[in-house]
């Protein structure tokens, strides 16, 4: 790969947490507001985060605006629940890409309203964390899209695809689908804080050759950055530079501290 021929010294280590929920996720705490998330991420020594709400991207622009000028890079994302009931992180560079993805996902969601009393409210907020509105669509239910097809669609938009907490017994790929599908062209697998990548490789043979990262999956502030991945990037953080690091493999392009 081109990057591997660059001298080590031209690369910088970035502490990255690509799985953080905002108040748009019904299950997130009400403290998950853009300015507080940004402050907490910086406090935890993170350089790059992604905001990944369940089947939703309505707060990504506010998150990016809240981080502007702070030195923290925010990538717009989503945690998609596929029709197989597998959670998949979809990570983009721009809010426009995230919006285009949202339009596709909305077409695959059941036409149901969110029951805020039972599932929790889905708040849309601005960069200051002030209430803008409520997303009334049911976003916890799976989208009618298979994981391979979703992967192709995210890639077509220029995004990264990372099945989330693959070893977990709720919406984890390995639990739901039994093993990593041979034809799944995702960019990496995420394990939860309960499992080290080395354990995952030892326990799940189908993960062989799949880059494994770890993120916090924070639903409350204190958890942000609890689990993270350190990326060695040759260029500014972006989908392209993260993908290049993932392709260099564990120990070279990235590691889970």
């Amino acid at each position, binding site marked *: 790969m081109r990057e591997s021929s660059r001298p080590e010294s031209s690369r910088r280590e970035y502490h990255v947490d690509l799985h953080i929920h905002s108040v748009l996720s019904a299950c997130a705490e009400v403290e998950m507001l853009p300015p507080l998330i940004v402050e907490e991420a910086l406090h935890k020594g993170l350089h790059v985060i992604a905001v990944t709400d369940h089947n939703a991207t309505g707060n990504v622009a506010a998150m990016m605006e809240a981080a502007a000028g702070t030195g923290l890079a925010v990538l717009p994302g989503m945690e998609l629940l596929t029709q*197989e*009931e597998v959670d998949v992180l979809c990570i983009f560079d721009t809010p426009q890409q995230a919006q285009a993805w949202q339009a596709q996902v909305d077409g695959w969601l059941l036409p149901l309203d969110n029951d805020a009393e039972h599932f929790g409210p889905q708040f849309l907020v601005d960069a200051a964390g002030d209430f803008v509105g409520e997303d009334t669509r049911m976003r916890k239910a799976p989208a009618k899209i*298979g*994981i*391979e097809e979703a992967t192709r669609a995210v890639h077509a938009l220029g995004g990264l695809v990372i099945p989330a907490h693959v070893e977990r017994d709720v919406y984890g790929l*390995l*639990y*739901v*689908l*039994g*093993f990593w*599908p041979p*034809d799944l062209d995702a960019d990496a697998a995420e394990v939860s804080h309960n499992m080290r990548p080395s354990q995952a490789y030892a326990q799940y043979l189908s993960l062989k050759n799949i880059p494994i990262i770890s993120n916090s999956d924070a639903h409350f502030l204190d958890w942000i950055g609890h689990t993270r991945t350190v990326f060695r990037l040759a260029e500014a953080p972006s989908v392209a530079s993260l993908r290049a690091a993932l392709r260099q493999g564990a120990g070279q392009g990235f590691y889970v501290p």
Partner: protein
Amino acid sequence: MQINEIVQKLGLTVLVGGDLAAEVTGGYVADLLSCVIAGAKPHDLWVTLQTHVNIVAVASLKEVAGIVVAEDAVVPAVTLEKAEQQGMVMLSSPLPVYETVKQLVALGL
């Protein structure tokens, strides 16, 4: 009981043929493939709503007699192709899982 007999008595749609004379000795129901890997037995008829292509590999691994996809769930072409390749019987029922299983029980399975 042969799969053939079950297909006829329940009016199931045969999505992918294979060994329709195979003997069915029990049943299994789950959509989580890790559960199926742990729990299904050879010659079971497996009733599910899961249609991802991985179901074929899991069914072959466990040597189940066939897969019944309930509630007319749409089965992707890639799953059907895999079932053809593996010779795995795939059936479809318009009824929900519960109703499908009730009928299987009524047949004496």
